[in-house]
């Protein structure tokens, strides 16, 4: 992987083992200055361990962690120019907000007058100037969160590490803090490395996302890349919801691939012929919002027939579950304000999509059809 001068953090083939258990396997990526970078994955995927290796709380068993171009693999946390916002904030309960924020600069033995200016400046940025003399226990969850941010940012670290920083907040506050975090990050221009298991959060805030699973980095890319062209079945299922239809590549037609689905039909997928050989076992990913349910077949696109088994009105959208002849269930997300066909549960309907609406992935999924994560989050983020 190419290292450029603007990379603040480089993980150079980093692995971490605990006995026989591989927590992180060969993580190899870099993070640019000023980037908002998310590490996303289910719990136990190794994202927090990776963060701890960057912070210095854990040492890699193999590979190097580079910070500002210097190998810091064996440097203890207190000598690394990165700061962490802990999951439960870890504010010092016996100190005021001011003393909490001043803790880092005082450790560095900076001039007390300078400390006072920079602490008040940082409290201004997180909008807590009036709370300087309060104790953390007198603040709300969101305010404590901002103290934790100020306490880390006041040191102007090369990068700020955030470990599930919003997990302890309720939904409304979490959404407000997502915007707040973005604003603060733009204002200070420091790289944020953000660990979360919430794909909605990652999609909303990040410039780039690393999706991790079982210690492996599955894919790194912008939110759009990861959503539109997932690198693996895991990524497809984990980010947003996806209908995964197993099949076999039957033939190539120019740049298009023709796939014979196990469900019975043969469909065409645009532009992916070169990546998948004829005869390969593949899955076709269909995002629910790309599907058009209707009573008649759609002449322009690809289509499948099935029975409507469930119809849920969700305000702006309507979610439909369509069961194909072989029992595979598809989820469709339709615009509820459009002319809704006279569809009733139990009716036979046609589901169609454009040729470029499908995406081919290698391998067959464990479960064919709908792989839904948290549909509300997709709606709020897209």
């Amino acid at each position, binding site marked *: 992987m190419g290292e450029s001068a603007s990379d603040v953090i480089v993980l150079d083939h980093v692995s971490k083992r605990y006995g026989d258990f591989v927590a992180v396997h060969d993580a190899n990526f870099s993070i640019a200055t000023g980037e908002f970078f998310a590490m996303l994955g289910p719990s136990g995927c190794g994202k927090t361990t990776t963060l701890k290796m960057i912070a210095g*709380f854990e040492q890699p068993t193999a590979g190097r962690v580079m910070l500002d171009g210097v190998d810091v693999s064996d440097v203890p946390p207190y000598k690394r120019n990165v700061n962490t916002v802990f999951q439960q904030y870890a504010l010092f309960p016996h100190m005021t907000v001011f003393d909490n924020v001043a803790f880092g600069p005082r450790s560095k033995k900076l001039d007390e007058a300078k400390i006072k200016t920079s602490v008040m400046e940082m409290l201004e940025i997180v909008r807590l100037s009036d709370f300087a003399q309060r104790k953390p226990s007198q603040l709300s969850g969101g305010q404590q969160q901002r103290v934790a941010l100020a306490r880390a940012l006041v040191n102007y670290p090369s990068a700020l590490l955030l470990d599930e920083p919003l997990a302890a907040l309720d939904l409304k506050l979490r959404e407000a803090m997502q915007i707040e975090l973005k604003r603060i990050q733009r204002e200070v221009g420091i790289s944020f490395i953000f660990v979360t298991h919430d794909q909605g959060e990652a999609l909303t805030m990040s410039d780039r996302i690393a999706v991790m699973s079982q210690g492996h980095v599955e894919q790194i890319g912008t939110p759009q890349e990861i959503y539109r062209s997932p690198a693996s079945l895991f990524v497809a299922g984990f980010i947003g919801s996806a209908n995964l239809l197993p099949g076999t590549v039957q033939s190539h037609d120019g740049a298009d691939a023709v796939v014979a689905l196990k469900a019975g039909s043969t469909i065409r997928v645009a532009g992916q012929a070169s990546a998948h050989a004829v005869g390969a076992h593949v899955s076709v990913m269909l995002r629910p919002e790309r599907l058009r349910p209707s009573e008649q077949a759609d002449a322009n696109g690809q289509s499948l027939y099935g029975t409507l088994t469930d119809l849920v009105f969700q305000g702006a959208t309507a979610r439909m579950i369509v069961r194909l002849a072989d029992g595979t269930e598809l989820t469709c997300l339709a615009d509820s304000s459009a002319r809704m066909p006279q569809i009733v549960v139990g009716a036979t309907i046609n589901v169609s999509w454009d040729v470029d609406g499908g995406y081919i992935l290698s391998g067959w999924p464990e479960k064919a059809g709908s792989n839904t994560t948290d549909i509300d989050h997709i709606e709020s983020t897209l």
Partner: protein
Amino acid sequence: MTETVVRQNRIARNADRVGMAAMIVASICLVALGAHWVSGPMVSVVVLVLLLVLGGVLGLAITGGPEARRLLAPYGLLKPGMLWLALFFLAPVWSLLRISLSTKESRFSVKYNFNWAFQNYATAFKDFGKQFEHAFVYAAIATVLTILIGYPLAYVIAFRGGKYKNILLGLVVIPFFTSYLIRTIAWSTILADRGFVVRALNAVGLGNVFEWLHIMDNGKLLNTPAAVIGGLTYNFLPFMLLPIYVSLEKIDVNLVNAAGDLYSSATRAFRKVVFPLSIPGVFAGTLLTFIPAAGDFVNAQFLGNPNTTMIGNSIQDQFLKQNNYPVASAMAAVLMVSIATLVLLYTRIFGTEDLA
């Protein structure tokens, strides 16, 4: 008829005042009985008042309705403790103070005449100054030693104990299954002149070093001030360790990580974060150790010599052997007041909000 109802309602509305008054009157009755303020037929009068007051409150609680019961409840709950303290703490303290200001007709008399005999206090200070000094100095040294030994131990158990935490805490507490007295006597065997500790020290040539440090005296370890202080330290160590452990255990490990993350070395993280957060434990441990240690007489009796006598020994001696209750009472009163003063001063200086 209506008038009675109105009157009753008024009583019910003021039930909290009634409850408090009843508690105070009942306490005074018990102190009067316990401290022999009354004698002869008056005793039955006081008992009658006591029963009437308690019965009256009970009656009010039954007939007064839910509002009266709600107002009476706190005093009802306070009463068992208050009355117990009145009979077994306030009454004895009253008697003690009274006897400390009395004189006996003769050494063998059992009668005391209360006559503001302040000379008892003069005697207590004049004859037993040395023993007071021993008590406070030994207790203070033992308290400091229990902090020095107990803090690191509690720290290791709390932060490095892992799955052995409970076993380690169990080991700290296990000696308590043996009587305090027997454990102290066991030390006199361990430290005996021909015991293995003294022999081992002499064998490796540390005897002279200990002699120089005034821990050993003429080749003896037992019956020295060091043995008494050692015994106190040993016996009170768990009372220091456990509260410190509790306050350390509550500290989130991430706070230490956060300090490290914010450029603090391990030493600074301890100084600025861990230690300040464990002060309530040290404070509680100090009170639990110093107060009983200052009044202790067991360690000085079994591990000390006539020159290491602590005030506890002297009080016991004056009470039980010399039968000199007035002076003994004066000594006990002085001990009580001095400890209370020291503790108050200590609380003022080091006390934390958490304990106040």
